[in-house]
């Protein structure tokens, strides 16, 4: 987990709960999801203390297009801002709509990062394209503080890489 964190941002301590679920299946760090199961956006429930604190959720692929040659690192799959604490992502503003990952090569890590915003509607610096997104600079530009992180692995539908873990 630490390695995933370091690839995307500076190490931090988790302070808010983040629960992500695709259909009936909960996202556990390092679990494998095939593209067909993640076509639609997941249900994202966040913790936090109250409704007056707002959070931003990003979903990035640091291994795009190929983990051994991540020239498009990071690829932004989803961006939601102004999520009120203790609610879920449906209550936020979907800046970039959810794009289901479809990796062509290799086994990619799909990383969710939850940030605490300075206040409501304080996220101005928005990316223009999905590829080569930089989470670190995004958070500095928008005065965001990382509070939670989660990730899963994804490979192409008919891929045979990696160990078969019970899903």
């Amino acid at each position, binding site marked *: 987990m630490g390695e995933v964190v370091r690839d995307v941002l500076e190490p931090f301590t988790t302070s808010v709960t983040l629960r992500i679920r695709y259909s009936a299946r909960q996202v556990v760090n*390092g679990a494998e999801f095939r593209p067909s199961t993640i076509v639609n956006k997941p249900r994202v429930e966040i913790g936090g203390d109250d409704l007056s604190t707002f959070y931003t959720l990003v979903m990035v692929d640091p291994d795009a297009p190929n*983990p051994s040659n991540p020239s498009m690192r990071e690829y932004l799959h989803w961006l939601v801002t102004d999520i009120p604490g203790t609610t879920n992502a449906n209550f936020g503003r979907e800046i970039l709509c959810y794009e289901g990952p479809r990796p062509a090569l290799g086994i990619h890590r799909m990383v969710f990062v939850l940030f605490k915003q300075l206040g409501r509607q304080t996220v101005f610096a928005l990316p223009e394209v999905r590829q080569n997104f930089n989470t670190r600079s995004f958070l500095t530009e928008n005065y965001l503080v990382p509070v939670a992180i989660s990730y899963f692995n994804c490979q192409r539908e008919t891929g045979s890489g990696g160990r078969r873990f019970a899903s």
Partner: protein
Amino acid sequence: MWPHEQRDRHHKGVSSSSSSSRCSPSSSVLPQTPKRRTMEELWKDISLNASPPPPLDYHRLQADSSLHSPSMVLQDFLAGPLNQPLYQPQAAAKELLPPPLQTALSLNSGLEFQFLGEADQANTQSNSSSNNINGNVANGSFTSYDFSVGPPSPAALFSFCSRKRSTTESHPGAADRHQKRMIKNRESAARSRARKQAYTTELESEISHLQEENAKLKKQNELLMRSQVAVPKSSLRRSSTAPF
């Protein structure tokens, strides 16, 4: 016919009689898969046949070799008194060999043909004469069943290594490509290991969290149960009645 041979076996050891049967030309031609079936059949038959005539003997023999799987026992059967078995199932047990041995060998005569085929590949740790080959071949084939690693692996390794070497030296620039490929592969392997490690640590922490939660909830539950018993259940009462 059989008892006569059996006596021979006693004196010369199993291998001699079986070697005569082994020398038949059909030995190496037999395919792999029938061997497995006959192996299983052999085991089935042994357990079946061994029970009637001297059931005690067979069991005693097995009891002595309790730590070892049946393969060791059969190996002893085949090896006969001439071969030193890898462990000592006691001299007494050897005397008991004949009756079960009879059954083993009567079934075994068909098998020994296949054993010879196995011997070509088998990396048997045989330090012995041809007399012992049968015993050791059996050992090799049995280990291949027991541990399913056995003979094929060294041969497979050799062919793989030689294949690799031959292709890399065929044209120039291939070495660089090979090098790059190797580096990429190494990175990929490292990623794979990291992935595996991350997942297992994740599962472990999940487990500990769940265990804690479970313990906490159980305690809570217990407290609630106790408090429920102590206080009589309060029933719902009407505070006011509306006209409708």
